[in-house]
């Protein structure tokens, strides 16, 4: 186990390495020296074009989306005191995807650029409120409610596919849902960023309340915590950040589940202390996963959401096995 003191250093190093790798790798191999040199060459030049218009927005998006998922996962786990809570499992990501699909494929985003993030947020909000409302009363009910809401959102997505304007659009929707950061541009990043940041602020404001919830709802309330405010902030923060991020990236699962669990051995279990490290680790995980999609030598680029699910599912199994051991 890495010493707790070395932990911030490790995070920083991983983050920097992740960012550099993300800027340095692509389907097209460009010498890092050439990439760095392109800064000083007369513009536009090809390496600069690729760096500034393709890899930078992609990297920024990986950090934003990864941090969002890590932060939302940690906040939801704290709020529900449930180690399985995660935007994907609670139906928030599918809800956001549904909103975004409706915006993209039924022409709303064409006439109004903000439609995609806003519908993504609306979808996430609807899904999250539905899950929280239906799942009051414990870990199991919450997970079941998440499954139900995810199912509902999946049905909505199927309906959207069903009503796809043409077969090509249906195919493209399916591919988009797999989640990817490839070929995103600055305008998409800038469109989503304000919502993502606003969501982060909401989630960060819950930190102390989440700590109090370590003692259970009754004690938290007795400590002066307004639980309805806490739930609202967590809900709004998750919907804003996950909704906006998903609207740009498609659904990316398991980062929100993995990140908090990865950092707890280092920073302890106090919910407020998990938030920031979990966000950073979410960003790191997504950066590395996205780099992996680019360097795995396949004819078709492996979609990011597919990769995170492939890596995340065994972890989920491990978590389930551990929970089973813990609770007879």
């Amino acid at each position, binding site marked *: 186990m890495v010493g707790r003191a070395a932990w911030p250093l490790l995070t920083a190093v991983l983050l920097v390495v992740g960012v550099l790798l993300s800027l340095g790798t692509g389907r097209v191999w460009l010498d890092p020296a050439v990439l760095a040199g392109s800064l000083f060459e007369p513009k536009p030049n090809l390496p600069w074009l690729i760096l500034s218009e393709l890899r930078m927005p992609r990297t920024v998006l990986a950090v934003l989306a990864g941090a969002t998922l890590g932060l939302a996962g940690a906040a939801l786990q704290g709020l529900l005191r449930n180690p399985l809570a995660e935007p994907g499992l609670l139906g928030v990501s599918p809800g956001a995807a549904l909103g975004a699909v409706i915006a993209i494929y039924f022409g709303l985003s064409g006439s109004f650029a903000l439609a995609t993030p806003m519908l993504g947020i609306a979808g996430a909000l609807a899904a999250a409120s539905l899950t929280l409302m239906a799942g009051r009363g414990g870990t199991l009910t919450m997970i079941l409610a998440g499954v139900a809401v995810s199912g509902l959102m999946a049905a909505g997505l199927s309906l959207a596919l069903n009503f796809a304007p043409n077969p090509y659009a249906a195919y493209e929707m399916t591919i988009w849902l797999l989640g990817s950061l490839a070929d995103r541009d600055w305008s998409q990043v800038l469109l989503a960023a304000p919502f993502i940041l606003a969501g982060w602020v909401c989630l960060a404001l819950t930190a102390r309340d989440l700590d*109090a919830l370590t*003692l259970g709802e*009754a004690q938290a309330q*007795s*400590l*002066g*915590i307004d639980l309805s405010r806490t739930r609202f902030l967590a809900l709004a923060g998750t919907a804003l950040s996950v909704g906006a991020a998903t609207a740009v990236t498609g659904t990316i699962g398991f980062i929100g589940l993995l990140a908090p669990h990865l950092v707890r051995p280092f920073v*302890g279990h*106090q*919910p407020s202390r998990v938030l920031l490290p979990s966000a950073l680790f979410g960003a790191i995980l997504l950066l590395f996963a996205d780099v992996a999609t680019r360097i795995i030598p396949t004819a078709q680029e492996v979609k990011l959401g597919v990769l995170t699910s492939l890596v995340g599912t065994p972890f989920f199994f491990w978590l389930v096995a551990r929970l089973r051991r813990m609770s007879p």
Partner: protein
Amino acid sequence: MSRIEAEAVTVERAGRAIVDGVNLQIESGQLVALIGPNGAGKSTLLSLLAGLLRPDGGSAKLDGAALTSIDRRKLAQVRAYLPQNPRAEWPVSVERLVALGLLPQLPAFGGLPAHMHARVAMALEAADLTNHRDQPATTLSGGELGRAMLARALVGDPEVLLVDEPLAGLDPRHALDGIIRLRALADEGKLVIASLHDLTLAARYATHVAVMSGGKLAAFGPTSLTLTAALLRQVFEVDACVTGAGTPTATVDFVPQAAL
């Protein structure tokens, strides 16, 4: 000097009064044992008096102000509450768990100020948990966790303490320990209300008893005058033998009514 008053407080759930027109006045220096059969409304009354529940009728007041109108944070600074079987949801260290009791006192931003660390250390010391300081709270035994939770409640030095069944599930030594601690707090001038099932401990250590039955307050008064066999027979439907209520050697014994 604090004072809690209940004026005809009523709580209804699904058309049934769970707490039905209860009038009560409790002051600092009292350890009130809230007793009564299962489902008598003890926990609900405690939540009401803690200001966590809004009464459907009547009002509960702290020092003359309706509890529900007091700012949550201000209230949290003077009143501590422990629910039944409190448990730690995350394996945080005992020290962190106890420090959570200082949340209402914390500045808006930043961590625990230096002078508060000393208060946590004192609370741990008082609860005899200094050795367990770094242990995850989820690995504590029932008695230890109970002490840790009480330390959590007391670390902010509240004037008023409401505890729901603090002795449930404790072995005799820890139960005795717990009630003695509560009594000591009352003797220090705090207002303590604890719902109890162990009537012997209530008879020995409580300064006052409040007896709930079917949502109504059946009796309230100093232990020696109130905790009588007649009352127990009426409320618990058992024949009881009460000796020396209000003294450290009091006992309460039951026999089923049918046996006589």
